[in-house]
Structures are given as C-alpha cells and as structure tokens.
C-alpha cells in the first residue's frame, strides 16, 4: 500500500480554519479539492477547499447540490474532490461521527486516496496565543505522513485520519 503524502496549501487550510472559527458553536464541514501530483504519484496536492455548512450537516439535498456545483466548477481548473473536512460541535469531541464517516467513504469511492481532516478544537483555541511554528502533528493512521509546504502558521492542531475502502 505504500506511503502517501498530502500537501495542504495555505489557501485551503486558512479557509477551513476561518470557517470553523466563525461558527464556534456549531459543527462545520467542508470539502478538499486537489489532485494527485503530476510529478509524484505518491503525493496528493490539496490545492483548495470549500467550506460547506454550519448547520444540519446531516441533510442530503444541500450536500448533493453543493457537491455537484463544486465538481463542475473545479473540474475546469483540473481539480477534483480529494477529501473532506470536519469540525465537531463540542470542544473536547475528537471522534469522527457517522455523518463524517459516511461522506468520507463516499468520497473514497471516487478517489481512493481520500483524506479526512478532523479539527482538534483544543489546539484551535491555543492558536492565537501560540508562537511556535514547528508542525507538531497527531497522525492517527498508518501509511500517512503529512508534508506541509508553504506555511506561515503553526499547524499543530490538525488530527488526520484516513479511510481505506
């Protein structure tokens, strides 16, 4: 199965974090867009992200319409949906709930190297006060090593889980 690397661009990352911060009391989600790197098959570049919802994440119609439109828009730029992002409502909740898993599995069907990012709320809280810039990360799945390029902010709060089908 080999090793896979994910490169998360600053743009994608910032959009997701800002979305999560804006809706502090709700669960939020979003999709990650990107492609397999043309130079190296084992690297997935996550070039952009689209924040989706901050309420009623479990309802299908909105999700369907947004995914249709997102795919249309980004296929013109050569990017596809490569992953899913989720932030839980509660501060100490670090579990990926069934909705997120279902969506992640669904994306995996179309893109086997799909990544699911779960926001660690505790580290998000510490973000404005933190000053260290070294990427300290929790990696909680085998076969995944994260390489982050072009960063101005500490990325210590992402917990990354990955799903195989």
């Amino acid at each position, binding site marked *: 199965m080999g090793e896979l690397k994910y490169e998360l661009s600053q743009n994608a990352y910032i959009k997701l974090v800002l979305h999560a911060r804006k809706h502090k009391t709700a669960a939020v989600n979003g999709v990650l867009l990107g492609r397999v790197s043309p130079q190296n098959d084992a690297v997935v570049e996550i070039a952009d992200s689209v924040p989706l919802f901050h309420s*009623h994440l479990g309802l299908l119609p909105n999700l369907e319409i947004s995914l249709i439109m997102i795919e249309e828009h980004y296929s013109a730029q050569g990017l596809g949906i490569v992953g899913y992002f989720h932030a839980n409502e*509660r501060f100490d909740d670090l579990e990926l*709930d069934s909705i997120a898993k279902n969506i992640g599995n669904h994306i995996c069907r179309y893109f086997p190297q799909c990544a699911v990012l779960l926001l660690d709320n505790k580290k998000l809280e510490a973000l404005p006060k933190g000053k260290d810039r070294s990427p300290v990360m929790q990696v909680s799945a085998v076969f995944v090593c994260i390489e982050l390029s072009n960063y101005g902010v500490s990325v210590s709060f992402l917990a990354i889980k990955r799903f195989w089908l």
Partner: protein
Amino acid sequence: MVTKTEETQLNRLENQVDNGGGGAWEYLCLVKKLKVRRPDKVLRHGLSILNDPKKRSALGPDGRLEGILLEAKGLWAEAEKAYSSLLEDNPLDPVLHKRRVAIAKAQGNFPTAIEWLNKFMADHDAWRELAEIYVSLQMYKQAAFCYEELILSQPTVPLYHLAYADVLYTLGGVENILLAKKYYASAIDLTGGKNTKALFGICLCSSAIAQLTKGRNKEDKESPELQSLAAAALEKDYKQRAPAKLLLLTSALKSLKTS
C-alpha cells in the same frame, strides 16, 4: 456595541468591585446588558453574591442564577442537581427544562438529552432542538416526526416545511421524495417564490423521482412543468444576484435533468 460612557462606567465599577467595594450587582447587570465577555470576574462576584445569604434572598425566590453560574463553571453534575431540585417546585418551567437539556447536550449525552426533551414537549424551541439532535444522530424518521409536530403547530413558517422536506429527501424512497417535493413547493409558496433552497430541492426531487421510476411505467401525475419552472426561477435569481455563477448553475441543472 459599547459606547464610551458605558465603557468608562464598566471600568470604574470593575475597579470598585475588585477592590472590595460594593456595587457588584450593578457591575453584573451592566456586564449582562452590554454582553461583554468577562467570565472569571462575573463568576467570582456572582458567587460572592450568592454565597451571601442576605443578598441571596433579595435575588428572588428561585435559584436559576445559581444553576447558570454552576453551568458556566463547568460543574455539570451540581448544575444538573440544582435544576432538578428547582424543577420539582416548578415542573412546567421551560427555561429550567432547557438549561437541563443544554447540560446534557454539552456533555455529549445525547440519549439523556433526548429523553428530557421528550418529557418536555410544549415548546417550539424544544421540538426544533430535538429534531436537530435526531438529524445529527442520523435518526431521520424521528426527526421527521418532530418537524411534523412543528408544522402542525405553526403551519405558516416556511422554515419548518423546508427542513421537513430536507429530512424526507434524506430518508429516500419514492413516496418520501414525492412528499418532499410537495413540501418544497409549499415552502416556495409561503416565501413568494424566493427561497433558493426550496427551488433547488424541487429540481433534486424531480431528478431523483425520474431516476427511481425509470424501470416502471411512468404515470406522469407530477407534471414536468414544476421542474422547468423551478429551474427558470433559479436562473433568474442567479442572473440578478450572482451573474458570474450563472454558467455553473445551468450546467448543474442540466446534469440533474439528464442524470
């Protein structure tokens, strides 16, 4: 927004209270009015008021404030005990019920929250909250039931029609999607044709029904006009508000019709 005078007053009171002078009550009232975030100070001074038995009786016959302060501190168990004892005296008080449910939700204890909400069913907010909890747990049938109750009690609120239609669509199955289409239509009716989500919902429903009834004989009860009307309305809306995205919309709608 906090005006200059209010801010100076706030600071003055803060200094006064911090240095042991009186005026804690005025300080708390001002903080509440301005919705300024000063949780530690509020907690400290609030608790000092509550712990002083003389002032406590002046607060009023119920100890709601005490419960809220305990909640803010994060002492869920004590707060829950306080509310439960208060509820014994006032079994119909909606505020207390809601605070108790909020505690359960904050702890992640969904089954308890659902149980408590089910006991206390007289309030629209309660039904809404219950429906949202069910949706987040993917218990769509129960969520549909909650929305039905809401629509029965407040039939002219388009939001409930829309949410009910969403849940029906998520449940799936031809009958549900047909019903969902009707509720999207009623939501559009109630909002005078301006609700984008409902318009999209109609397009989605029509394409889903077409897909699901592909094999059977088509009894075209539902006219295809509805979908084309909805599509036309969406295009008009986009032209006005987001002309750059119009192309995207038309291609998305096309893919819905053909899929």
